[in-house]
């Protein structure tokens, strides 16, 4: 929709071009959320795509995605064959509520910064232990794990003037076995619970819980726990008030499904476990 209060579009060509942050400024990446709701307090758009960041970089250390990498670009990536976590990428792209047309425009960084519980890029990044690189207005950088970047519904760790620059996925996480589980109130609806399990070659299990709770959480186990131990761990880690309550799922159902899907993931990853 038209954002009629916007007076200026700033299109910085490099970091030095970034304007001093003012009240009413807002970063524009894909724009698929920004232009989907009234933004009556916003006056200037800072167009991050003008910075011309390369969408991705694949090295032996891992995968780096620019915040402005689109979902479509991410989905098209050809990842090294030993990164067996690669199917998660497609699964998480498909978990986006928006259509494939939105993929052409929406960005990975935008999905993270929105910090919606159901943000599937948050799930992907949290499960694969991605690190956020943040540009501060003073020219410095800081790094945060995704689980510390996303603080709650539509609440991220960015301070005024800070910009999410990129996400780095360590190769160690990309070489884990993964299992993806998701449920929503309608077949392709917004995720009510989205859980991802990983298992490394040493047998350690992680279960990342998103969508059902207000911010992502990752539970780690040195070995596959028994089902009842998993249930207890979830109950202890996730207090009732952390379960998200909105029209896409009642909290008691989200808790119930979180337990159920975590159990399914545990069972799926328990097979073929190293001795």
């Amino acid at each position: 929709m038209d954002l009629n209060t916007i007076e200026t579009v700033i299109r910085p060509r490099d970091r030095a071009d970034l304007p001093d942050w003012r009240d009413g400024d807002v970063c524009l990446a894909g724009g698929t959320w920004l232009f989907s709701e009234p933004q009556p307090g916003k006056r200037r758009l800072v167009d991050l795509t003008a910075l011309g960041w390369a969408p991705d970089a694949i090295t032996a250390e891992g995968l780096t995605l620019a915040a402005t990498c689109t979902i479509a670009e991410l989905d098209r990536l050809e990842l090294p064959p030993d990164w067996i976590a690669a199917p998660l990428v497609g699964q998480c792209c498909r978990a986006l509520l928006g259509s494939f047309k939105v993929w052409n425009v929406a960005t990975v960084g935008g999905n993270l910064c929105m910090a919606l519980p159901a943000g599937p890029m948050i799930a992907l990044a949290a499960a694969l232990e991605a690190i956020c690189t943040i540009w501060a207005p003073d020219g410095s950088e800081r790094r945060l794990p995704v689980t510390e970047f996303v603080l709650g519904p539509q609440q991220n760790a960015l301070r005024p003037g800070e910009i999410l620059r990129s996400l780095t996925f360590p190769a160690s996480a990309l070489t884990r076995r993964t299992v993806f589980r998701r449920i929503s109130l309608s077949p392709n609806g917004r995720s009510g619970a989205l859980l991802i399990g990983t298992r490394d070659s040493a047998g350690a299990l992680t279960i990342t819980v998103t969508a059902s709770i207000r911010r992502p959480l990752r539970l780690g186990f040195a070995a596959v726990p028994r089902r009842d131990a998993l249930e207890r761990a979830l109950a202890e880690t996730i207090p009732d008030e952390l379960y998200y309550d909105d029209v896409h799922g009642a909290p008691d159902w989200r808790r119930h499904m979180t337990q159920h899907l975590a159990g399914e993931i545990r069972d799926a990853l328990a097979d073929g476990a190293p001795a």
Partner: protein
Amino acid sequence: MRLTINGQRHDGAPRPGQCLRTYLREAGWFGVKKGCDAGDCGACTIHLDGEPVHSCLFPAFRAEGRSVTTIEGLAGFCRPEDAAPDALHPIQAAFLAAQGFQCGFCTPGMIMTAAALDQGQKRDLGIALKGNLCRCTGYRAIRDAIAGRAHRDTTAGGDPIGQSLPAPVASQVVTGRARFTLDAPPADALHMKVLRSPHAHARIVAIDTTEAYAIPGVVAVLTYADSPQRRFSTGRHQDPRDDAADTLVLDAILRFVGQRVAAVVAETVAAAEAGCRALRVTYEVRPALRDPDRALAADAPTVHDPLDRPGDDAPPLTRHPNLSAEVHGEVGHVEAAFSEANLVYEQTFRSQRVQHVALETHGCLGWRDPDGRLTLRTSSQVPFLTRDALCNLFGFERDAVRVVCARVGGGFGGKQEMLTEDLVALAVLRTGRPVMWELTRQEQFTATTTRHPMRVTVKVGARRDGRLTAISLEVLSETGAYGNHAGGVIHHGCNEVLAAYACPNKRVDACAVYTHALPAGAFRGYGLSQTIFALESALDEVARSLGIDPFDLRRINAVRPGDPMVSNSLEPHDVVYGSYGLDQCLDLVERTLKSDPGPEPEPGWRAGTGMAMAMIDTIPPRGHHADAHVKLDPEGRVTVRIGTAEFGNGTTTVHRQIAASVLGIAPDRVHVAGADTDAVDHDTGAYGSTGTVVAGLAVLRAAEALAERIRERAGELSGAEPAACRLASGMVETPSGPMALSEIGPLAARGRADGSPRSVAFNVQAFRVAVHPVSGEVRILRSIHAADAGTVINPMQCRGQVEGGVAQAIGAALYEDLAIDSDGQVVTQALRDYHIPACADVPETEVLFANTHDSVGPFGAKSMSESPYNPVAAALGNAIRDATGARLTATPFAPDRIFRAVMAGVSGEG
């Protein structure tokens, strides 16, 4: 900025925050539609350098140097003013061949998306089309179009009645040329925006407009001080007294969050929005009534307080000022019958608020024509009743106002209301300029109307042999802040549901109450979907308890020709058995379900079947009128003028078929012009499923009268008796040889239908479902629907009406809930939070028609638009009960609401 649009170089300067959708429309590309303006519905889809994008989400400035293709240019380069191309893109041709649309508002975006799909995506349309919403079709026709399956009859000749002819406007729709309400507005039109109430109940103490007027571009601010003091109802009926006159154009008393506070009229939308933000309003907040159960309590806050209407007539004498309407009636001796029954089942069922979600939002464009006459082009199902209401409101003579509709982008009852026209008229009168008001999708959710939420307590008594001895209904309907349709809906809702059963003892106690909530209004089914959900669920329990098959229970108890049709009183009425096809519908569905119950569920899921039936009067009561003019021009072509609006219901096609059949000419020589108060004397409107049975009957009568004149004239010219002349094959056959119609015209004739007597139509729905015993997810394995529509004038279109009704009802049964929080604020303000069925959510429904011929309707036809909606929720609930043992008593059956009941049901069964 320079870009290419449909092959044409375009230079322009987008506003900084402008999206590409409005930029393209301002450049004249009106095939780019606004359904949601938020990236959820896909109606605005265009191609950007060949990639499909939602243009509402795309910043216009980013189109610099790029190549845009809109629906208009899909088949080849063109300019905005060019007519539809002769050569279509293959996917446009496929949508034409399959008639993959109804109202056609979603179609440009649907086609632009489909054109971009690769073979892999086409194999899973549920995923590929999740960003494209259609409210009319139920998606089957769209899936068929994309798969290349054709449906329209292309064989020329023969009687057009019974042929699947395409909609006359089809090629305009698939090429983006069909003009909807707000396409091509005048260049000097002002724009209006409305400040809405933040409070559920308040009095406006003062509105300071100084800062608003200081904003450049603001032309006028309208407040309660500018409002006519006459009250009206937004709900429109043939008899305006059917709805309580409780509404002002602008009122100092605010009765729901979202009510109009003031309107700003400005040169641009941006200035109008800024003007609204600059209004300084002082409110005196009052206690609000949010709980309908408390509405009739002695100490409940009063929604329409007589003290707020000094000088007005006393309000109707009801036992409580919050009682908006009531129905009480009894036939036989209900209590005695319950005590004598072998089985009594009682349960309370709740139906929630749901929204129509027509893809075209409400919108109206008003101006004064060169003679100074007030003219409105509006998205309405009732242009004539709106004209009458405006005349009454502003004190004008009838001929001082003209109301017209372009093609209307969906209605579903939501446009049987005057929700925009009153305020646009006031703004035009005040400014003297053309004024346009387009509601946002958010306003559709927060400030238009919904289905009436209802609590229905049903009690059924039965004998061991399955005979029903008594039925009682206690209904509490919440009309919200205003009483539009409150009475009509509970009367209708408590009528056919009971009249369908030959049970000697029946009772109704029904109230519609005011609350400080978004008003309810007319909605497909008009009260019956809520009560039928209750009764048909209860009958399922009765059948189970008695060990009787649910189809047989209906056979034992449903009315048959000869039975009096009685709901809750013995008052005489004008409903007759013009035909009767319920028996066929029950047999068809039962047999089809048995022969093919659908796929087996996945391991771990529970499967079950359920059915329900519905009866509906084919026409609303107490008069529904239509005038038709049919004219033969000197070229031998025929024009039908009719008042009813086309919003995807297909009446234009049917009227063309009727006229062509009577006059013996090819359908493509008949032009149908509708929905203009200047065209004919009167038309009650396109509601109550009357487009075929009332307006169509008027067309039939006019065409028959014209045929008579043609025969007379041919007789005069050829010296033969008129009776010896026959219309066929586009000619008049006379004893002295054939005469061309062009030798006979011009001639004209009129016809009228008055909506009485009325007949009855029937629908039977069955589902086989799979339910996940842990998550509560419901999957439909098989959906079968039989309809008794009398003569089916256009099988393809009628099938589409049934499929669309079933799909919309699946939405209400499984997903949709217009949630309102404790402060009275609507929570679901966007389509991403109010999930209407997408392609993946709607299974194929096998549609079967009973073979009947009605004595009342034209060519034996009956209405078939609203009624397919009505049995769906109960049939689904009954199937879930069969699968899990859980009797669900409230819709929607969403996983998070039903999983506990399902788990309890499943474990109880084991």
